[in-house]
């Protein structure tokens, strides 16, 4: 297990380095002159020069990269063009709403998704299975932003049960987390079902029944525990993407999170912020993948004791 863990962690490092480099190159990959784009069409040459100086674009590439890497470790990610504060100051206050929302979405999506999958597998072919899987496939086909808007229309404007935006009260969490979690719930339901169908066909499940074990325990203690390995892996990947998936929910529900910050920053050409955010999301995704891999190693005894 130790060797497996070290291998995984070590392989993540070069990936991180390459990605940080690619994100660094981000500004330089933009066609045209980024400085001019920020300064605006009517800017004078002096204005553009000022912006270029601000972005540090006049230094040779290697120096720029050096400063960038140094900045990553010291926490100096530059200044936001839009509001003049440091990038770090801009991002930090927006983290909490995103994380709160993401955790909410994750909790309900995992619980409902996995449960639906298990029950569907046990009741394969029956009405429940059909309906549950129809709901699931609808969940992955729904455009998130449309779901959000229609939910607002129905429950906020129409029935007045929930606010249309912001995160003022617990009620405010309901609609956005429904929107954000729908896709994941659907994917987990489908995947759990197919995984359970396979594990329930295995020989050791037959042995459990032959011992005289009741059906519920056969399903949960034997089949589900084995499926859990796969489900955690797939679920973990999905959950990793939740944070960046918050873009949609935050935009529709006007939540001041990092997802919306990304969109706004792109529109304002606030490149330093965009860079920092992309790096943040990539980092978060890679780290969650790493955690999932390690978790997999812990849950799967074949890896833990090899």
């Amino acid at each position, binding site marked *: 297990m130790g060797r497996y863990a070290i291998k995984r962690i070590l392989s993540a490092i070069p990936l991180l380095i390459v*990605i940080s480099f690619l994100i660094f190159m981000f500004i330089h990959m933009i066609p045209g002159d980024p400085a001019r784009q920020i300064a605006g069409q009517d800017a004078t040459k002096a204005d553009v020069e000022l912006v270029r100086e601000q972005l540090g674009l006049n230094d040779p590439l290697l120096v720029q990269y050096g400063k960038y890497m140094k900045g990553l470790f010291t926490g100096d990610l530059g200044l936001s063009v839009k509001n003049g504060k440091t990038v770090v100051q801009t991002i930090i206050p927006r983290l909490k709403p995103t994380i709160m929302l993401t955790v909410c979405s994750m909790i309900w999506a995992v619980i409902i998704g996995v449960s639906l999958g298990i029950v569907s597998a046990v009741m394969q072919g029956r009405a429940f299975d059909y309906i549950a899987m129809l709901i699931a496939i609808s969940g992955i086909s*729904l455009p998130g932003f449309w779901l959000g808007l229609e939910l607002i229309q129905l429950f906020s404007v129409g029935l007045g049960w929930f606010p249309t935006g912001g995160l003022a009260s617990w009620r405010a969490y309901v609609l956005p987390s429904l929107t954000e979690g729908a896709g994941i719930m659907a*994917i987990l339901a489908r995947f759990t079902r197919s995984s359970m169908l396979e594990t329930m066909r295995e020989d050791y499940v037959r042995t459990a029944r032959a011992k005289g074990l009741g059906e519920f325990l056969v399903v949960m203690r034997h089949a589900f525990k084995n499926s859990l390995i796969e489900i955690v892996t797939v679920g973990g990947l999905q959950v990793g993407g939740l944070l960046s998936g918050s873009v949609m929910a935050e935009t529709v529900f006007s939540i001041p999170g990092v997802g919306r910050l990304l969109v706004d920053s*792109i529109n304002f050409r606030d490149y330093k912020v965009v860079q920092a955010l992309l790096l943040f999301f990539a980092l978060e995704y890679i780290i969650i993948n790493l955690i999932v891999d390690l978790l997999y190693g812990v849950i799967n005894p074949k890896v833990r004791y090899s």
Partner: protein
Amino acid sequence: MSDIDKNTSVNQFEDAEALPVQKSRRKEFVQKFLKRKTAVISLFFIVLLLLAAVSGSFVAPYDADQADYNSILQGPSSAHIWGTDEFGRDIFSRLLVGTRLSLASALSATIVGTALGIILGLIAGYYGGWIDSLIMRICDILFSFPDILLAIAIVAILGPGITNVIIAVAVFTVPSFARIIRSATISVKESLYVEVARSIGCKNWRILWIHVFPGTIQSVIVNFTMRVGTAILAASSLSFLGFGANVTQPDWGAMLSQGRNYLNTAPHIVLFPGILIFLTVLAFNLLGDGLRDTLDPRMN
């Protein structure tokens, strides 16, 4: 959906000599497929959409850009079955004409991504060595980003517009196909290695072509169908965020984005494009599911 596709594996390979048997297998396939009602309905719906894409401008009751300032923001009525938007343009006509743009962008993005993925997979599997490592590293990097984020990042660099959306979606489609084809190529390469070693270069390619594709064609088709659905969602999401199509163009996502401003007064502007996107993606997903079940040898 994309993350599950990453773990697709290839099941079978067929001999070239088995080709005569394939004719009756095609019949069997069609029969099996027709039994799945949801898949058949989805196929029907998609064909309708394709027809709409081709003939939209001719069939539509109104011109897509025809503004009518006397009837702005009207709900569904006998004159405008799906109502009008803020410029008085008929929504049904716009959506019909917009089918071409929305479908074409999703299809072309998926086709480009698939083709590129297949080529990269073949090269990686066939040549092995550092080329293989390089291509796999690139795929890993692409896999390190969730789909939407990658698309947003690419659009952030290249700027808004339909072409860039297509590029972005094509890019995140590449890795899953590359993986499938690569592992299939490697299996075939290893099994034929001795024979292949003796033949000339171009013969190797033909052997790969004959042996790699029959086995992987199933995975590729199923994956492709699902990917088109993903592409439509991604493209419309990008349009919604303002990164995609120009707001004047009749694109489904853009129409929805515009309609947001009038959600309270004219909810139909958001409703109909949304339903259309939903049903289209649903159709592709159901079709993909149906294809996968029909092609799966275990489902008997």
